């Protein structure tokens, strides 16, 4: 595994997001619905996705990863910040101006049960984007739908069936076929496999990998499962409470994570194969839960659960700093090998005395 360059300087990134903010107002009850607070779901994040590559967005529930996906697809209106798609600003465009970009940016949803209309046939569902955007003449829609069904590994003859006749994995394939209908350049995949059984998860991940290779589609891959993201994305951004805390390529994030949160997340993820070959990981056990995004901690947002936290963490918010090709937002960033497997198959884990016990 070699560290690939984040973006080659010659080609501009397909999607460039800068200081993106999304605050949801909280209104008081009563006639005069005054705004009494803000849910700071996404609070100033920047990242970019290059043509035909994929960026993984990882974090726990409530960290703002889904909100980010919905901002990029413009299902939410950003509070502030800029999003450039192929160099064109798409934040703040009205729905008519947005139309051509909607064709280029598509979404795959988490739940294959609620994201397909139960009253529509598969043909109607997958064909709908083409009808709406008039990309294919009406008489050719059916042929194109069947082509797409075949691409995602479904029987093209199932064109007239309803979603309830399919299993969860097959439904997710229908959702994927729909997202491919307009030949998008970017697909935002929001937890595309987390609702599926393990054996089916692998099928869908492999399908997405094949599609990416074949059609050179860029992915913004949102997931809570570190292992799944690792198998799909060469670059990974870790989010915590509305902020990006660490960005880097796969090797940097998984082999030498610098941010304490990335380290904790990695050490908490159970890994069967590693257990099977006798590997051991350090146990970093975080206390408590993610704080509320309505009133996030001052300074570094992770400090309330961090074992390295000191006074400066409460006062100053650490910026994303460049450390050897990666970006980390921590005052005390240092590498920690969470998992060490030696070449002879035996694993070694050096336990940090600083790790907080449960």
């Amino acid at each position, binding site marked *: 595994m070699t560290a690939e360059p984040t973006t080659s300087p010659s080609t501009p990134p397909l999607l460039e997001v800068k200081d993106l903010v999304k605050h949801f107002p909280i209104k008081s009850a009563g006639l005069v619905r005054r705004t009494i607070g803000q849910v700071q779901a996404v609070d100033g994040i920047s990242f970019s996705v290059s043509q035909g590559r994929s960026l993984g967005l990882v974090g*726990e529930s409530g960290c703002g990863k889904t909100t980010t996906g919905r901002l990029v697809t413009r299902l939410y209106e950003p509070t502030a910040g800029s999003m450039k798609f192929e160099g064109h600003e798409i934040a703040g465009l009205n729905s008519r101006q947005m139309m051509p970009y909607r064709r280029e940016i598509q979404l795959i949803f988490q739940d294959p049960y609620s994201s397909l209309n139960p009253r529509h046939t598969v043909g109607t569902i997958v064909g709908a984007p083409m009808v709406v955007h008039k990309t294919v003449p009406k008489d050719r829609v059916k042929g194109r739908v069947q082509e797409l069904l075949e691409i995602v590994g479904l029987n093209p003859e199932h064109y007239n069936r309803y979603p309830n006749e399919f299993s969860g994995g097959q439904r997710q394939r229908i959702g994927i076929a729909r997202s491919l209908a307009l030949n998008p350049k970017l697909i935002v995949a929001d937890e595309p496999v987390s609702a599926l059984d393990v054996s089916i998860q*692998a099928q869908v*991940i492999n399908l997405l990998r094949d599609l990416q290779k074949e059609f050179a589609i860029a992915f913004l891959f949102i997931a809570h*499962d570190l292992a799944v993201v690792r198998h799909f994305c060469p670059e990974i951004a870790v989010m915590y409470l509305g902020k990006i805390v660490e960005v880097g390529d796969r090797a940097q994030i998984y082999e030498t994570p610098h941010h304490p949160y990335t380290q904790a997340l990695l050490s908490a993820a159970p890994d*069967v194969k590693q257990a*099977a070959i006798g590997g051991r990981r350090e146990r970093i056990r975080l206390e408590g839960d993610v704080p509320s995004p309505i009133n996030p901690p001052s300074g570094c947002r992770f400090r309330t659960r961090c074992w390295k936290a000191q006074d400066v963490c409460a006062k100053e918010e650490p910026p994303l700093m460049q450390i050897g090709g990666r970006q980390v937002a921590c005052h005390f960033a240092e590498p920690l090998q969470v998992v060490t497997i030696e070449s002879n198959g035996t694993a070694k884990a050096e336990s940090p005395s600083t790790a907080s016990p449960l």
Partner: protein
Amino acid sequence: MTETLEKTDPKAQPDDRGDEPFLVVEELTVQFPTYDGLVQAVTDLSYSVKLGQTLGIVGESGSGKSVSSMAVLGLHDVKRSRLTGSIRVGGTEVIGAGDQVMRKIRGNDVAMIFQDPLTSLHPFYTIGSQIVEAYRLHNDVTKKAAKARAVEMLERVGIPQPDRRVDDYPHHFSGGMRQRAMIAMSLVNNPKLLIADEPTTALDVTVQAQILDLIQDLQREYGSAVVMITHDLGVIAEISDEVLVMYAGRCVERGATKQILTHPEMPYTWGLLGSIADTTGDPDKPLVPIPGTPPSLLNPPTGCAFHPRCTHRDKVEGNRCVTDLPELRKGRYDGHLMRCHLKDPDVIFEEEVKQEVLG
């Protein structure tokens, strides 16, 4: 704090039944008659768990893992299900037992933690009152004493400020705290057997790690038996002593955790291991999924239920995978059982599958 926990065990059944494990399930079959036909949810399942031990039951959705454990608590409606076989909890037969017997067992000798703590806690009652109810049902104590016990249990499972939080409602708690409250409730009567049905599936990984640690700590403290039901082999690897792999309602492989993870001898287990994305190893190597989908239990495949998805069935002579159900037979290691026609699955695994699956 712990001494009060230990002495309040009024049931104190003598363990004089020789060496019989605390939970013994023998040839359990659960079927549900429906309009579409008979759903064969669990077929011929046998296992046992000793006190102080953890058994992990792993399988995909619809493999019968939850149905079999609900049978232990007698949670199936007798009018809508057919149960045969035998389940003994501490020597008491559960199948066919009346409501009186079951009420004594439920929440007392045997407790269950469910997957979704929000739907398994009552939204109208405070956390405290729900724990108090569970405690007073089996113990003749005053409300005040029961509440003190509830506070003590909340503290034990790591809820901050338990004396205040005891009066909160479930919606005041976060997902991880709710699951802790569920665990506090299930452990309030010092059960000898804890059945945890996907207890961490709805939780984030950092919280999952906390809950798994908590269950292990509590098990060590009270020496209870634990049945951990999950679809996640990672959880199994962390917590269980023994693993039972289920497919289409049957046990297809059983053995010590280490053995099952390093020397599995059943193609379905190979497939499960190959499907899992990992955090080490070569990320560019594609995963090895199991082709196809799990079968319908209305009409399970003939012979070995896994044969339509099995990539090794051409190695068995004479199409036996399609016609004959393989017996659950001994594997290479002690206590290892597997259900497969392959003559030497351990050799096939070492030579062909291991590299692909374990990387």
